[in-house]
């Protein structure tokens, strides 16, 4: 890639609105690594909630919006595995089903340039050590979209493993869904809560100070449960950990 081209940040609607610190950490991290970051202000939401809840046809304006915001970008990064999975695996099919093969073709050309943050760091920028420092005991919960959608494998763990002072603790049954599932969390709130309760128990059992992952949505659910049930475990997006530097305690 040309070192001059800025990396366009697709921050996602959730991070933009509720977790701006995740977007800020992504910017800080990439700039520290010597990259220029741009934020195409035309972006809004990828439409994942609509698509996964059966309102795929209604998501069409969001597909067009994504194309308008990022169509010209050479490289796009997002700190969300599930949003990247939506763009990559659902977009072209939705456009085709809506009878817009032109849009589908444009999106097909665009999606290979869209990367989840850990993916960008490890496969595109070929980095494992991003010179971060975070002296805490951290449990990594692999979100379903990162694990079975994007197939990130151990990329996040390798990145975390290279962080100074960070102690990775093994989360029991880590690959079991936390119970978020988008609108599932409210449509099937009781089942979602039962799944969450088991995830929280696993987090407590492993002695972590911090639970991290690659999706703010799952973290919002896990964090909401942790805050409700008390205790000292915090949630942080992996971008926040990777952006941390030695110095005053983060």
């Amino acid at each position, binding site marked *: 890639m040309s070192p001059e081209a800025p990396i366009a940040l697709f921050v996602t609607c959730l991070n933009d609105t509720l977790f*701006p610190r995740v977007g800020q950490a992504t910017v800080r991290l990439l700039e520290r690594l010597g990259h220029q970051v741009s934020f195409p202000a035309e972006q*809004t939401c990828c439409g994942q909630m609509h698509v996964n809840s*059966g309102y795929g046809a209604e998501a069409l304006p969001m597909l067009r919006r994504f194309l308008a915001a990022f169509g010209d970008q050479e490289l796009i990064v997002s700190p969300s595995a599930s949003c990247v999975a939506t763009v990559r695996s659902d977009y072209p099919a939705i456009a085709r089903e809506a009878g817009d093969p032109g849009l589908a073709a444009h999106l097909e050309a665009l999606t290979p340039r869209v990367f989840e943050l850990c993916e960008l760091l490890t496969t595109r920028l070929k980095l494992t050590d991003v010179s971060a420092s975070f002296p805490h005991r951290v449990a990594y919960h692999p979100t379903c979209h990162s694990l079975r959608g994007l197939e990130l494998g151990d990329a996040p763990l390798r990145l975390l493993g290279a962080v100074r002072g960070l102690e990775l603790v093994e989360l029991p049954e880590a690959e079991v*869904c936390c*119970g978020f599932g988008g*609108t599932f969390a409210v*449509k099937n*709130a009781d089942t979602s809560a039962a799944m969450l309760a088991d995830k929280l128990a696993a987090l407590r059992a492993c002695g972590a100070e911090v639970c991290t992952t690659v999706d703010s949505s799952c973290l919002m659910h896990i964090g909401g449960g942790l805050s*409700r049930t008390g205790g000292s475990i915090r949630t942080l997006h992996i971008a926040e950990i990777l952006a941390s530097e030695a110095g005053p305690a983060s």
Partner: protein
Amino acid sequence: MKGPRSFPEAAREALADPTLRRNLGRATATIRARRAAVVAEKGDWQALRDAGAAIKADTMSRLDDLLEQFERQVELAGGTVHWAVDGTEACKIVAAIARDHDCSRLLKVKSMATDEIGLNASLAEAGIEAIETDLAELIVQLAGDRPSHILVPAIHRNRDEIHALFAEHLGAKPEETEPEALAAVARRHLRRQFMTTSMAVSGANFGVAETGAICVVESEGNGRMCTTLPDVLVTVMGIEKLIPRWQDLEVFLQLLPRSATGERMNPYTSFWTGVRTDLPGDGPREFHLVLLDNGRTRALADPHGRDALHCIRCSACLNVCPVYERVGGHAYEGVYPGPIGAVLAPQLEGVESRSSLPFASSLCGACLEACPVKIDIPSMLVHLRAAAVGAGATPRSERLTMAALARGFGSPRRFEILQRFGAAVQRRLPRDRRMARAPGPLGRWARSRDLPEAPPESFRAWWKKRRDGGG
């Protein structure tokens, strides 16, 4: 339309039962571990899955021709073939065969197809008693209960519950509480039935078009008894159970037991083709095959749904599903529980009456990962959700919210307005338990989770300031 309860409603009841959750958690964890071990030892597992998926896709693409070939082969071997468009028709056919032979009792081999059409209840109405011979089906039948798992119908019951049941119905002694003793009690009861009943009804795991053979895979030997001892055998087989060639079994007989019970090979694999000719040998003198549609051709016509017909009923998707593990099979209010049930029930019964099922999943994808024939259950659930939305089966408030949000997200300007409005509201709301009283999704969220803290500004506001400030 007053049909089954909605999934969230049925799930709430199941979640409140700690014994059920313990029974299920223990049983599914055991099967999961066993499956993982025997799958891991197959170096060509992914190739086997690909082959299984390809054979099923090929079968479905020419199902009409293959079914006719199958019919010819079964009849050549001395069997009689019946075609049933739905469950009512299939039940009538079986009852008529029983009446023709003056049978007031018949044996049952564990079969999903006959559960699907409610055969036992239908036969009872006709004055014919159906005796389940699979141990777990027997437990369920004695308890007047419903199966809660495709393969392990009594997975929701523990040993003590089973002992109580056998003591009441089969004369189990107080000390007969160990699994071996309980199995012996059932065996005493079942042997009597096997020796004195002249008709049996089975399902089919596979039907081989090329030879007319039927295959049933089982663990207990009760199926072998039923298919060899009685003079009259009736097999009720969903039309999707067909495979083209005998050789295809090489693939499926590896995929099925490893995925289902976590065994390299199941204890009993029975094949029969038509009727016995070398009297007095084993096997029925009279064989009837009932080919059941019951919604399957409708599923076949749906390009997004037809892969569900590839299902070989192994239950791997149930055992790995975090939703199934917590709520059990009864919450699905139908014969087919778990992820595949959430697809099959709306397909076979219509999405309007089962509209909550496609939403009974966090779309975590564990089912697809485990499926031996690679059925993309998560994608199908999403398509069925769209069908439910299209049929007007989702709440009006939800449809309006989604439409409003889609419009809002369609433009950066409107998005920003929504964002500011949302943040202003959020800052005024309590984040804790008090929010659980809020109506709608917000209250359902807050029953078990605090709301996130409202940030001082959005990312885009921060970015704008930073850019304008030259940062």
